[in-house]
């Protein structure tokens, strides 16, 4: 799988993460091309969420390197990565419950307008951008409700809206459809498609639902016990003997 270096937006080289004696992520080298939609799959405990935590900066790496747009960001803290253009959603949603849905997104949207001022009022352009993101995520109707009072599914959509509001180059989605009904899940898939058409985004999505993965993904990386088991187009991965042995079609 030869990739041209200057097209790579996010890559890892020999990335690992150790917890005591356990290597949760073991020597993973991943390369995302600009604009690609990559799915990350693997059985439970394969290290998918850990990898996302490493990429987003919530966890420091035990070894290896992470490069973003050609720059080494391995030592960067999470907030800095978010500012630089790596956004992620959380599997267990992290939202501000006493703020409204709109305010949650506003928080991220105002980030790209420079340092938050203490005395200015909240600018209308930011509001427009925030609402736009809410519309893309499908929860504009809930804009003025308290984020703590909306349903679980809507909270996940809110996570997506917040991530979008950062104007990211790379979007890391950690199991966005977990715990959702089939209809809600496909709803999200449609939205993700629409979002990718609108914004030029590279997406790395951790997903268990193999139908969704096969539908959405351009390339798939399969993780097993912290290591890369296989990588390629959906067809290639589906044909891969190792994958079939270890991870038969998922749920």
């Amino acid at each position: 799988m030869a990739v041209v270096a200057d097209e790579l937006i996010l890559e890892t080289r020999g990335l690992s993460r150790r917890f005591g004696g356990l290597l949760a992520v073991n020597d993973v080298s991943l390369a995302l091309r600009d604009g690609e939609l990559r799915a990350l799959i693997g059985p439970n405990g394969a290290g998918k969420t850990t990898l996302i935590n490493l990429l987003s900066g919530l966890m420091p790496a035990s070894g290896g390197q992470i490069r973003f747009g050609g720059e080494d960001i391995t030592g960067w803290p999470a907030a800095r990565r978010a500012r630089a253009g790596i956004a992620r959603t959380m599997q267990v949603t992290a939202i501000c419950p006493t703020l409204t849905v709109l305010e949650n997104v506003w928080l991220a949207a105002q980030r790209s307008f420079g340092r938050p001022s203490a005395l200015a009022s909240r600018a209308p352009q930011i509001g427009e951008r925030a609402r736009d993101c809410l519309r893309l995520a499908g929860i504009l109707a809930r804009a003025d409700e308290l984020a703590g009072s909306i349903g679980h599914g809507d909270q996940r959509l809110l996570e997506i809206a917040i991530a979008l509001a950062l104007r990211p180059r790379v979007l890391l989605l950690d199991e966005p459809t977990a715990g959702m009904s089939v209809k809600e899940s496909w709803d999200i898939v449609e939205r993700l498609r629409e979002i990718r058409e609108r914004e030029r985004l590279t997406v790395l999505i951790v997903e268990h639902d193999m139908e969704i993965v096969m539908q959405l993904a351009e390339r798939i990386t399969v993780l097993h016990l912290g290591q890369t088991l296989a990588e390629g187009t959906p067809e290639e991965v589906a044909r891969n003997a190792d994958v079939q042995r270890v991870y038969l079609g998922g749920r």
Partner: protein
Amino acid sequence: MKSLVLLLALVLLPVGLGRFGRFFAAEIFTWALYAMGFNICFGMAGMLSFGHAAFFASGAYAATWSILYIVRDPWLALVAAMVVATALATLVGFFAVRVVSHSFVIITITFSLVLLLLAHSQKDITGGDDGLLFPPLSLVVGTGPSLATPLVSYYVALAVLAVVYVLLQRLSRSPLGLVFQAVRDSERRATLAGYDVQRYRWLAFVLSGSVAGLAGGVYAITHSQVNAQLFDITVSVDAVIWTLIGGAGSVLGPAVGAALVLAFTHLVSNWIVYTQIPVGILLILIVIFWPRGLSGMWRSWQTS
């Protein structure tokens, strides 16, 4: 708007008050300012401090020293109060915001306690429990109305309170205010949205200490005296209690809480010598019968 009406009412109020009423109201304004400052740290940014007396008292002493050793100007005294309190908050805050919430509380208690011990031991510069006194100031150095007049103290305290209130209202609705509240609600979310949580906590703490110090400065110039008891933990606890009673969810809540408790204390003093007993009982009753406090009522102010 509601606030303008309130301000107008407060401006006109002294007409109906006697000397003591005006003096007492000035007291309330001073403590209300202190509580509002405390709430930047607590209600807005979500950090509970039991050491804000340190900033209030440092501000009061800085103002006093400025009057005694530099020039007898009340406005410079207020600036001195803010400068010193800000410096202290910057120093302490840098370390304090790096630790977990219960440890943060302890750091604030420890810091305040150290200052209290110093204030009592360094009697030659602080005057200890007897404190420091100075002749009442005039509004403009040497001339103008004297701050010994309750009416003058009233308007000075009200003016400072009003200005700070407007600024805090703007802050709570500003982008920065949003960041503070986000940090309070979810440190992780704020981080993932690209904000250095420690930096913003530090900033909130510094602002909070500043305003508390300013309140201390107002206290000094309106009382013409300060003493070491201003560093007591009771002063820190007061800020917490007033805020919790009046509601931490709005800018004005803590001020209302302070006003209510102080007014109640004064009212009760007509019949009972040991006023803190009924105050204590009141706190217990409020908690048992009205747990939401007044914060529910005042939340509507914040969203208007």
